[in-house]
């Protein structure tokens, strides 16, 4: 962000752009301030087309202090120079954000923005859905939810009243730990799910996973949750393929966005990118149609090192998912909103 362009680079750019000599370009850059100064002296405002207006603004005299010595000084009234960029300039600068609009927050959830950062986004595991619309049209193509398992929900309900009384510090500490443990569990569950045959033992997986959640949650006050997440994450990314170009992916049986993202990007959490790129085909993020070809958008950076543009894309993707769930009134929407904000380039 603080990258600076040198005067020489600037001159070169201008001479190339306008097809003039570098000397001429240098002259232009030398002349501009002179004219602006003249204009400001003459009538206090200079409009430069394409940039904006430089204006002299009066400042009232006030009492101040010398910051070095602390001595009182009287600052006399003077004029200062302000620059007001013109509308088109502002819009030009803000082009990357032009897709973003205001989002109305419900009265209930005003907190998420001020909340402490959550260690890991809640895992949006997508239940796989089979939709046999390939050739035979005899059966009504109703999407059959092969699996009804949901990602474990983070603790939405407020902590018990006793805990609230104990003080804020404790609660702040508990929430990330709880989330971390849930993340670990879901990762374990995800890995296990990958290995198994999908059709045979779905229910067994679901039930065993549920029991695990119940068993471990009471122990959630143990601090060593962080190393566990790291251990679990490492096998998660098998072969990170970099420099992915725009490509297509043929959905086969047993695939869902979360897994596809894991395969092509090496990071399952990037799945909203695919969701965003295939809005026409995929309406429900939990539902993909077998046999359809979907577009896999390319990343500017690598999955490990996302560029601000990539993050913005992902954030946009999560925003779409958030909006989808919000419309449905699904409480998962809140989680996706948090993730959306996490991915947003600062």
């Amino acid at each position: 962000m603080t990258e600076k362009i040198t005067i020489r680079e600037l001159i070169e750019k201008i001479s190339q752009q306008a097809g003039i000599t570098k000397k001429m370009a240098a002259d232009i850059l030398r002349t501009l301030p002179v004219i602006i100064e003249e204009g400001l002296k003459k009538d206090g405002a200079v409009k430069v087309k394409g940039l904006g207006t430089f204006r002299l603004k009066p400042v009232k005299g006030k009492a101040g202090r010398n910051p070095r010595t602390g001595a009182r000084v009287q600052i006399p009234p003077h004029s200062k120079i302000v620059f007001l960029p013109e509308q088109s300039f502002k819009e030009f600068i803000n082009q990357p954000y032009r897709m973003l609009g205001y989002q109305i927050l419900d009265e209930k959830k005003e907190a998420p923005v001020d909340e402490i950062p959550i260690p890991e986004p809640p895992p949006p595991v997508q239940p796989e859905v089979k939709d046999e619309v390939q050739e035979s049209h005899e059966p009504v193509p109703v999407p059959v939810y092969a699996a009804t398992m949901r990602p474990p929900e983070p603790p939405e309900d407020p902590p018990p009243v006793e805990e609230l009384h104990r003080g804020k510090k404790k609660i702040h500490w508990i929430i990330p730990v709880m989330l971390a443990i849930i993340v670990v569990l879901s990762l374990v569950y995800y890995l296990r799910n990958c290995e198994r045959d999908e059709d045979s033992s779905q229910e067994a997986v679901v039930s065993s996973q549920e029991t695990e959640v119940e068993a471990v949650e009471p122990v959630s006050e143990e601090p060593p949750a962080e190393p566990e997440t790291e251990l679990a994450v490492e096998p998660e990314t098998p072969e990170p393929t970099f420099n992915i170009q725009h490509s297509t992916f043929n959905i086969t049986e047993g695939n869902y966005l979360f897994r596809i993202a894991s395969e092509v990007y090496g990071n399952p959490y990037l799945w909203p990118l695919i969701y965003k790129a295939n809005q026409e085909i995929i309406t429900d993020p939990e539902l993909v149609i077998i046999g359809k070809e979907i577009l896999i958008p390319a990343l500017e950076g690598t999955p490990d090192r996302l560029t601000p543009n990539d993050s913005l894309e992902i954030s946009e993707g999560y925003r779409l998912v958030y909006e989808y769930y919000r419309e449905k009134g699904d409480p998962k929407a809140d989680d996706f909103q948090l993730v959306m904000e996490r991915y947003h380039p600062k």
Partner: protein
Amino acid sequence: MNTKEFTTAFAESLKISRKDAAKLLQETTRVLRETLAEKKSLSLQRLGNFRIKTLKSRSAYLPALGQKALIPPRDVIQYQPSAGLKNKLKNTPTP
């Protein structure tokens, strides 16, 4: 000083026609805009520094909607006049 006066002054000091001056000004401002759009800061001698500051998204109450909303992030252009220019114009009366 409006655009017309500016272009005239520009043409006179570079000893080129008004038409050429307008074109060159357009190209120059375009380069400056593009440079800033890349989030690079630039400093012009005797004029000052320009840089981009990104304002994070935040939630705020919007009176027009009567509701709390998440305001998207945006970039603002910041200009800091050079010390020389500032001092020179310090005592220029504003109209």
